[in-house]
C-alpha cells in the first residue's frame, strides 16, 4: 500500500527522530536504543551448575562403598578374575608378588624359593602373623580366634609360592583364607 495521501503532491513519511539535529546527542541515542552497550548487571546461571553437581553426586553415591575397606594392591600384582565371589572384608592382607611377600604392605621376606625346594619356612612372615594374632587376642580376650586373612597374589605366579604362604598361615592359626580376586562383571 502506498504512503501517499491527499491531493497535494507531498509525501507523508513516517516520523523519524524528533530532536533537532543540533540537539541530537548521538552517543546518548546509541546507548539507549542501539543496544551496543549491554546491561552490566550480569547474573551467573547457577541452575546448570546445580544440575552438574547433582549428576556427580548421584554417580558417586552409586559407586560408594559403605564397608570402608582399605586394600593395598601391590603394583606388581595382577589379580586373577572370578565370578562367584564374596564381598571383601577388612582382615590383614598377605601379598605374594614375584619376588616379595608382604603383610599389610610391610615387607616380610623375599621369595627366591626354587620350585624344587621343599622348604616352606617363612620365619619373618610367621613372626609377623603371630604378633598380629597376639594383638587380636589381647583386644578380644574372650573371643575365639577366627584367623581370617586376605591373600592376594599375582595370577601368573607358580602355585608353590602361594602354598608356602598358606602353610605358614595355617601353622600360625590363620586358617580362614580369602583369595582376593577381581570380580568379573556379568551383563
Amino acid at each position: 500500500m502506498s504512503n501517499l495521501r491527499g491531493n497535494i503532491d507531498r509525501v507523508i513519511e513516517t516520523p523519524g527522530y524528533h530532536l533537532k539535529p543540533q540537539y541530537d546527542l548521538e552517543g546518548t541515542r546509541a546507548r539507549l536504543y542501539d543496544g551496543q552497550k549491554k546491561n552490566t548487571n550480569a547474573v551467573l546461571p547457577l541452575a546448570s551448575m546445580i544440575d552438574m553437581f547433582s549428576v556427580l553426586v548421584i554417580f558417586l553415591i552409586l559407586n560408594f562403598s559403605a564397608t570402608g575397606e582399605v586394600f593395598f594392591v601391590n603394583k606388581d600384582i595382577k589379580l586373577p578374575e572370578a565370578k562367584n565371589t564374596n564381598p571383601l572384608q577388612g582382615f590383614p592382607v598377605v601379598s605374594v608378588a614375584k619376588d616379595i611377600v608382604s603383610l599389610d604392605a610391610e615387607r616380610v621376606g623375599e621369595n627366591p624359593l626354587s620350585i624344587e625346594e621343599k622348604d616352606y619356612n617363612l620365619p619373618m612372615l610367621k613372626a609377623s602373623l603371630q604378633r598380629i594374632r597376639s594383638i587380636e587376642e589381647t583386644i578380644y580376650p574372650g573371643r575365639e580366634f577366627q584367623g581370617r586373612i586376605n591373600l592376594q597374589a599375582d595370577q601368573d605366579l607358580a602355585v608353590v609360592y602361594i602354598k608356602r604362604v598358606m602353610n605358614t598361615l595355617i601353622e600360625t592359626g590363620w586358617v580362614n583364607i580369602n583369595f582376593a580376586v577381581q570380580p568379573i562383571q556379568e551383563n
Partner: protein
Amino acid sequence: MAKETNEELNLTPFIGLFAMLVVLLLLTAVWNQIEVLSTNSANSTASNNPSPPSEPEKEKIDLSVSVLEDKVQVSLNSQANYFPILDSEINKDQLSNYMKKVKNRYPEKSDVLLYTDNRIPYRHLIEVFDLLVGVGFQDVGVSTQ
C-alpha cells in the same frame, strides 16, 4: 499496588552442600573393586585331620579335583576323569558340565578338596575354585601338600 516480590530461589547453600558432598564422596570412593573367594578351613586341613566317623550309615563320597600342568583330574570314589588343558587354558565348559552332573547325583555333597601341581599358575587354581563354587560346591578346601 502490590510490591514486586523476588521469587528467585537462593541457590548458594545448595551449591555449598553439593560441593561438600562431592568432595566427601570422592575422598571415600573405592575405585578398584576387589572381592574374595573364601576357602573352607575345615576342609583345607582335612588331609591332616581325618573327619570323625559321626554318620557311618551315610554313603561316603570322596571327591577331589587335581589341577595339573596339562590336565584337570576329577576323582570321584576312586574313579578319575580327565579334562585336558590346552594352550594353558582350562576347558571350563566340559569341567563345569561334569561337575554339575556330580552335583546332581550327590546334591547334599558340598565339600571338595582341591589339589594343585606346584608349577601351575595361580590363576588356574582360582579358575577351578571359582568353577566349583559356581556349580554349587560351597566348601572348597585347598590342599597345601
